[in-house]
């Protein structure tokens, strides 16, 4: 059990112009399952390697339960890691792969194998222990790699996209299982992934990264509901958020967002400054109806099925909006439909910086990466 903290950590690779990890301070809370989510090249795997000690920080400190482990070699950090490639030892069978960390600690053969059996039981791989890694399927290798981490009962588990090489069905069941294992062990899990489904299904906290810096650190729900900037807003969500550039104006004491063809009455929303702004709205924040009396009217240009829902892309003037079609409706390309926004589902972003404009009546996002150590 441990809390892991990055204190103003920077990672720069020689010869590269941009920092792989820009100055980052971040606390992985004790016993929580934290996903580091981001596109490739965002620095998420680099952070994991820094935590494991297989890469050295350029500056800054890494603390585990308050103790500075920045210069502790990976051999002596009490962390276990599961690699995307599984990184099993090719010349050992599954049993010895899992037993390897125990052997290094000088445990006797009997005790080693007894513990391996226990872990194998938990992972359902007792029947595979005599097999060489090359005789195992991807999912089986993944379990062996996981077993090799669990058997050490480390303070911190580092998982580098451990399930992204599995097929979709197996991924789903493995997520459940990982969650179950996390609950049972109660250790700190730090899980790197580019797949938001991983983050949603398993994590207590999500660190969303891009270009080597943390964009948002929050619960999965908050990341979805209150994205901190346009990047987060567009990265999270099964279908992309629609963005509309426009202006907030005050007319007759009422706030109103207007972009020409698209407008919305913002009566009752306080804290919104007048001026240029970008509004973001997810498909479930756009309602379409057959009613011609709706405030806006548009034409359906595309339909998509993401079971169980139907989604329609609607053109209102020169603005494209994606809407979730309510279950009972059927729409086709070319149909004219009425469009309404669900006002509580609108996100406002600064027109230049792309940062979220926090509306007074919504709770502030957790910004613990800002907390000084």
């Amino acid at each position, binding site marked *: 059990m441990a809390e892991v903290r990055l204190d103003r950590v920077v990672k720069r690779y020689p010869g590269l112009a941009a920092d792989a990890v820009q100055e980052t301070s971040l606390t992985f809370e004790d016993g929580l399952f934290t996903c580091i989510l981001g596109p490739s090249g965002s620095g998420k795997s680099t952070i994991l390697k820094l935590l494991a000690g297989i890469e050295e920080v350029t500056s800054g400190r890494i603390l585990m339960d308050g103790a500075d482990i920045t210069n502790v070699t990976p*051999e002596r950090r009490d962390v276990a890691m599961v690699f995307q490639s599984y990184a099993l030892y090719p010349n050992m069978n599954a049993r010895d792969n899992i037993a*390897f960390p125990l052997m290094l600690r000088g445990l006797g053969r009997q005790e080693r194998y007894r513990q391996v059996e226990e872990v194998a039981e938990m992972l359902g791989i007792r029947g595979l222990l005599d097999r060489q890694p090359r005789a195992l399927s991807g999912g089986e290798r993944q379990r062996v790699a996981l077993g090799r981490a669990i058997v050490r009962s480390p303070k911190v588990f580092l998982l580098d996209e451990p399930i992204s090489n599995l097929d979709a069905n197996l991924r789903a069941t493995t997520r459940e299982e990982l969650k179950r294992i996390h609950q049972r062990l109660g250790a700190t899990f730090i899980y790197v992934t580019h797949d938001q489904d991983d983050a949603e299904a398993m994590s207590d906290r999500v660190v969303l990264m891009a270009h080597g810096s943390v964009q948002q650190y929050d619960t999965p729900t908050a990341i979805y509901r209150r994205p901190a900037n346009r990047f987060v807003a567009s990265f999270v969500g099964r279908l992309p958020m629609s963005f509309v550039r426009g202006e907030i104006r005050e007319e007759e004491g009422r706030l109103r967002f207007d972009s020409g063809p698209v407008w919305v009455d913002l009566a009752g929303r306080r804290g919104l400054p007048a001026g240029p702004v970008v509004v973001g709205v997810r498909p479930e924040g756009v309602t379409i109806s057959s009613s011609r009396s709706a405030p806006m009217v548009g034409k359906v240009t595309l339909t998509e099925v993401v079971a169980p829902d139907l989604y329609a892309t609607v053109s209102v003037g020169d603005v494209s909006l994606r809407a979730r079609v309510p279950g009972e409706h059927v729409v086709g390309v070319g149909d004219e439909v009425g469009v309404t926004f669900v006002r509580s589902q609108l996100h406002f972003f600064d027109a230049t910086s792309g940062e979220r404009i926090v509306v007074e009546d919504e709770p502030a996002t957790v910004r613990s990466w800002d907390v000084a150590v």
Partner: protein
Amino acid sequence: MASGVATARTMGNRFSRLSIRRESQAYALLFLVPTTLLFVGLVGYPVLYSLLLTVSGRGAAPGQLGAFVGLANWARIASDPIFSQAVVQTLMYVIPAAVLGVLVGLGVALVLNERFPGRRIVRAALLIPWALPPVVVAAMFQWFLDSRRGLLGQWLVNAGLVDQSPIFLGGVPGTLYMLTAIHIWKTMPLLALMFLVALQYLPNETIQAARIDGASRWRRFRYVVLPFLRPTIVAAIIIQVLITVQLFDLIFALTGGGPGRYSTYNVYFYTFKTTFEQTDFGYGAVLAYIVTGFVVVLALLLTRGRARSILS
């Protein structure tokens, strides 16, 4: 009735399929002819001719078949002291060359597999000894080891280790070991390269996993790297033995078989001397057969081992 028709049809198909197979077989044979002719002419004929040489006495001219002498040439092996000496000395070359050569090659490969500044240059430079022509190597070492003006002697004197430059190529069996050392120096790059290539196939993440699991540098080597390299080590040993059994140029250029008359002979060199200097083609062919037999057995071991490791 219907079934009769069906049978006839399937039989017709079978016949046409058979004839296609026959036709393609004919083509296959046709395409094999050039290779077969080359092989028979360049390998088969010399092998058979030299087999005849082993049962013939001296002919009218060197290399011509003389009178049939049965197994007399073969029998001479048993009572030829130079042959037994050459066999022992062949082992004196082969064993250190295989053991030390592979160890040094492995060590060099492990060092060059680490990241350090200038690694590329060092890796490229590594190949120089292997790329040098043997005669150049011999000339180089002749100068380097010369007892009066050689660099090595001078270094030793300057370092205060000896009063007078020693004679490096004069002792028995010291000279043989000197040749072995030069031979290892020359062949080590090949072995190091083999290991270096194998190491490229060991995923970096596997080593990192071992580090995170708590393995020290030595234990990573002992439990992860070494088992991974085992097939390569076996192959490297066999290849080094094969090369060393056929060691000839260094002996020829540096010592001519001496000092003394035979002290740096191996069987291969003795075969050359017997055949082309004493023009005893019959006995020379016997010696050549012995060396060849040994090489073939080793080569089979190597290829069969390869096949096995690929299959598994």
